[in-house]
């Protein structure tokens, strides 16, 4: 008997969930429902993920042997450039914010939708249009500048489709800005009664910090690419040293965005992990306040460190010093978060469901990647390993080992809520473990290869590096399987998976108090919040066997 019936109220009339509320294609393409837009984004970025993956598969095949022979050097350059551009801007940046952020943000704060629903739809259309332009660049022959578009190569010497690629990225930047504005306004203005700032789930804080970065950093990227496009198309001499220009200026403008961009890619992942770990350890998060401060600090300090990508560019030693120092500082808040996630496990009742496997994997792999970052922050070491596979391994540990793992963890955690179906847990566990091993096999050898001097972005290499490349390429094959498996069993679950209840994990967020899938307006009853998040156990005690109180315990569940 529900409390509603006990109180003598009538039950709610049956109403469709958001998936069944309008089944035509038009209803999907003109929707302003944040949940549907999240799904539109999810489909789009999955396509881009596999495109970027296909590109790098060709690259890793080429690198299996020292003189490959499968691809010409030009084609090789175009493939890794496409891989970088697609993966960074069309997969990682939108992944967690535009799929899980879009879907969960209003649910987690108890709102019926985002602040500007039509702007949300516009964001998606802009991403699709931008993606089309970028894919056109590939189809028309590709771009070979690397995802970094460095001048003067990109402006004066490259014979590839720089203009189209830069235009595509320029456009998708504005999608990012629109999303960021939407999220910031939503979090400020649409929280349910009782949902104070320090009762927000950490995922919401993560999205908030990410949105600030998106709004403030993306415009500078747009300008850097606009200038490259202007120079190429109109012959303007912005970065041409012979005519008074400064090529290093491009790098300043580019990295002013692209360094904070890596925090756009990692902060939401940290937010996801902060939701999963408390749930599957049945513990409150350790040090909630400092988790919040750490995320704000990462977002803020992230804007001060971009020059560490430019230590060997010709930047002055004075600037090098400042950037190196600040880059060491920014490791501190990340470390605080790692300590807190670990401490949250203490005295927990840990269950190794697949989301938890991904989350724990994140903690280890992110830490490894982050520690390698400290090596790179140290200028003497950086001079040795810059533009080698050491750097490649570093950022893949964080982006792939970190962000992609967290993305998959979140996908599994919230799949029941989004679709109303359960996925097969044993397959999911298998895929998670396979991913962990495949990932390490792919990228751990790259640390060694890089440290021993193997340069990046070359289609051939001296034979002494072959062992590392063979390991890496084999690992990539395993990783590919691990990424394809979820595609299979998630699709299966849509038709044959068990129906999920409101709260299959007994978690505490507001999103778990509504039906799976949720109704179009998110909640049948306006939630009112009376407690903090992660209330998995009483103070000073371990969690009991009963389900915890979710955040709106006074409302009918």
């Amino acid at each position: 008997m529900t409390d509603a019936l006990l109180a003598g109220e009538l039950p709610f009339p049956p109403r469709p969930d958001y998936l069944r509320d309008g089944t035509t294609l038009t209803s999907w393409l003109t929707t302003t429902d944040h949940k549907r837009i999240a799904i539109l984004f999810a489909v789009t970025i999955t396509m881009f993920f596999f495109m970027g993956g296909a590109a790098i598969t060709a690259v890793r095949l080429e690198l299996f042997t020292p003189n490959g022979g499968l691809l010409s050097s030009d084609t090789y350059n175009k493939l890794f450039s496409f891989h970088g551009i697609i993966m960074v801007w069309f997969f990682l940046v939108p992944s967690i914010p535009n799929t899980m952020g879009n879907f969960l943000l209003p649910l987690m704060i108890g709102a019926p939708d985002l602040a500007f629903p039509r702007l949300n739809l516009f964001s998606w259309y802009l991403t699709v249009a931008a993606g089309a332009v970028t894919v056109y660049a590939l189809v028309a022959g590709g771009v070979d500048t690397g995802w970094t578009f460095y001048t003067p190569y990109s402006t004066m010497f490259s014979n590839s489709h720089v203009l189209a690629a830069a235009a595509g990225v320029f456009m998708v930047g504005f999608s990012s800005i629109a999303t960021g504005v939407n999220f910031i306004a939503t979090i400020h203005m649409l929280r349910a009664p009782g949902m104070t700032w320090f009762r927000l789930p950490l995922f919401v804080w993560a999205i908030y910090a990410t949105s600030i970065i998106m709004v403030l950093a993306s415009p500078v990227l747009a300008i850097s690419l606009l200038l490259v496009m202007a120079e190429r198309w109109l012959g303007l001499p912005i970065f041409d040293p012979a005519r008074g220009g400064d090529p290093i200026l491009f790098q300043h403008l580019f990295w002013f965005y692209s360094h904070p961009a890596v925090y756009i890619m990692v902060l939401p992942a940290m937010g996801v992990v902060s939701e999963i770990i408390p749930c599957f350890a049945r513990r409150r998060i350790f040090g909630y306040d400092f988790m919040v401060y750490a995320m704000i600090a990462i977002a803020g300090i992230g804007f001060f460190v971009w020059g560490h990508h430019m230590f060997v560019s010709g930047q002055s030693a004075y600037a090098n010093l400042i950037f190196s120092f600040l880059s060491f500082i920014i490791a501190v808040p990340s470390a605080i978060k790692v300590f807190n996630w670990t401490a949250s496990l203490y005295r927990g009742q840990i269950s190794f469901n697949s989301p938890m496997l991904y989350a724990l994997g994140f903690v280890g792999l992110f830490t490894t990647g982050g520690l390698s970052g400290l090596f790179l922050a140290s200028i003497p070491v950086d001079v040795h390993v810059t533009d080698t596979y050491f750097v490649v391994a570093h950022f893949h540990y964080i982006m792939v080992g970190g962000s992609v793992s967290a993305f998959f963890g979140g996908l599994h955690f919230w799949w029941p809520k989004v679709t109303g179906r359960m996925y097969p847990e044993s397959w999911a566990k298998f895929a998670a473990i396979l991913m962990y091993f495949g990932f390490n096999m792919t990228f751990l050898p790259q640390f060694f290869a890089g440290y021993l001097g193997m340069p990046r972005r070359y289609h051939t290499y001296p034979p002494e590096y072959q062992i590392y490349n063979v390991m890496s390429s084999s690992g990539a094959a395993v990783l590919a399987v691990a990424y394809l498996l979820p595609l299979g069993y998630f699709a299966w679950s849509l038709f044959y998976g068990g129906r999920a209840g409101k709260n299959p994990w007994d978690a505490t967020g507001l999103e778990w108090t509504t039906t799976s899938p949720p109704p179009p307006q998110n909640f049948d009853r306006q939630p009112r919040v009376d407690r903090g998040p992660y209330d998995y156990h009483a103070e000073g005690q371990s969690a009991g066997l009963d389900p915890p109180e979710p955040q709106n315990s006074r409302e009918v569940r």
Partner: protein
Amino acid sequence: MSMQSTHPHTTAWRLWRRNGLIWAALMLLLALTLVLAYVPMGWLTPAAGIVIAFSKAGLVILLFMELAKARPLIRLAAMAGVVFLAVLFALTLADVLSRLAGR
């Protein structure tokens, strides 16, 4: 927060007077910056232009855009843009100027 007054005409007149005065100040500053550009004062000439530009922008942002009486959250948003723009300028110029000095 709308001003309740006795008559729409009084409100209109009040608005014209307030905004007209601000406009007059802006025009004066424009004339000033034009004139000063022709006065050879070494580095002070471009500096004066920048300072006057900031003053004009300040009038527009504080009075036309009413940032002066906006609630704190709005001012925080505006400040955030300014602060991070300042960071972009400061650290980039730190590199450019020290490279120039070293040449």
